[in-house]
């Protein structure tokens, strides 16, 4: 039998369907139930929440990846500081040999650098009394920042491993003691300040800050820090401010 005819046959047979069955369907046709409302089951809600969590985690991880960690930031000056030691050694040789060209050139460079520096000295020194001090010596730069105790300790450790012992002690004293006492001696024209860094255990370390930027560690009679003129001026400003406040 042809396909069409088979269909026709079925249609004919459907005419003999049970009347009750057809009546039931007719009743439904007249009173349709309508389309069922779509349910929003819990698993869909859970899936949506899970998707949001994944997105949030992804953005958090991306944030961590794209922004360098604070430790990484601190590593950068450490590399520079190694260079600064070498440069300071070279500068010592140049200054001691009286190379004026080198000194003038460096003075200009230092001035330019200081101009580009963020305003640290005045604002940070104001908080000297109440906060710990983080001092990091970069290339011809002295930074004084008010930070938390925890960070100050971390910085102290970093400095210990990177610099000479004398400088570390000087910095450590500044960090732990939280203040600096100075004494001006005008009789000696080379010496501008006698610096007494008082430590936590009341031990006093005596240093002399010379006009030409040399900082002598008095007790050992040796140079512990060579300062550029601008750096020297910065320190000078810090000390004066603090001295006045102490008064």
């Amino acid at each position, binding site marked *: 039998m042809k396909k069409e005819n088979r269909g026709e046959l079925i249609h004919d*047979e*459907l*005419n*003999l369907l049970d009347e009750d*069955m057809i009546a039931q369907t007719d009743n439904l046709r007249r009173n349709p*139930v309508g389309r069922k409302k779509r349910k929003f089951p819990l698993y869909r809600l859970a899936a949506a929440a899970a998707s949001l969590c994944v997105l949030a985690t992804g953005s958090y991880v991306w944030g961590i990846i794209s922004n360098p960690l604070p430790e990484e930031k601190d590593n950068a000056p450490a590399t520079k500081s190694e260079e600064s030691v070498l440069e300071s050694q070279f500068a010592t040789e140049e200054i001691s040999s009286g190379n004026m060209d080198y000194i003038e050139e460096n003075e200009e460079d230092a001035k330019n650098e200081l101009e580009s520096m963020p305003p640290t000295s005045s604002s940070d020194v104001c908080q000297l009394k109440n906060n710990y001090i983080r001092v990091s010596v970069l290339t011809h730069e002295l930074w004084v920042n008010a930070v938390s105790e925890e960070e100050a300790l971390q910085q102290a450790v970093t400095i210990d491993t990177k610099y000479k012992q004398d400088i570390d002690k000087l910095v450590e004293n500044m960090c732990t003691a939280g203040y600096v006492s100075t004494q001006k001696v005008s009789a000696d024209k080379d010496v501008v300040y006698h610096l007494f860094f008082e430590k936590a255990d009341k031990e006093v370390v005596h240093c002399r800050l010379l006009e030409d930027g040399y900082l002598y560690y008095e007790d050992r009679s040796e140079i512990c820090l060579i300062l550029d003129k601008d750096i020297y001026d910065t320190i000078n400003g810090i000390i004066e401010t603090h001295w006045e406040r102490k008064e």
Partner: protein
Amino acid sequence: MRLSKRTIIAVKGVSSMTDERIVDLYWKRDESAVAQTQEKYGHYLTKIAYNILGNMEDSLESVNDTYMRAWKAMPPHRPKVLSVFLAKITRRTAIDVVRRHTREKRIPSEYIYSLTELEECIPDGNTAEQAVEAELLAKAINRCLCTLPQETRNLFIGRYYSLDSLKDAANYCGMSETKAKALLYRTRCGLKEYLQKEGFYI
């Protein structure tokens, strides 16, 4: 009895009555039975006819034929459900019209003419054997549909008996068109399998 379109329009507005009373009117040979039927089931029957024919003029003609056949059938027949009884008549009438139209649209070749002429040689489907076979097949289809869930059964009957569009059938069964389509496909396959099991090879 010949019922015109004008007659049908004239009887509009008559209050509806119960099926039993309408059937009684037929049995009493009261012509208002037709008007009451038209009032109550006119739209329903026209819809069925239109689903099959897709043409309003032919549909109205089929519905009028239905009234006439119903008038002839009652008495002696007393239908259990009047609406289904009338719907079956309309359906059969409309399908006959479609078949007639299809035959008329065939290419006028000698082959087609010969087919029509030869058809007369073959005994028509009303032989006792064919009638029994058709009834057996109908019963098998009935049994198969009885095993289906109500939702599926309603959809199947709506689509293939009432010949509603897939969209309409899905709508009054409360499901999406896609689901209805899939459900109908599975039901057709199931019906085929069932009929083969019962020994019907069409």
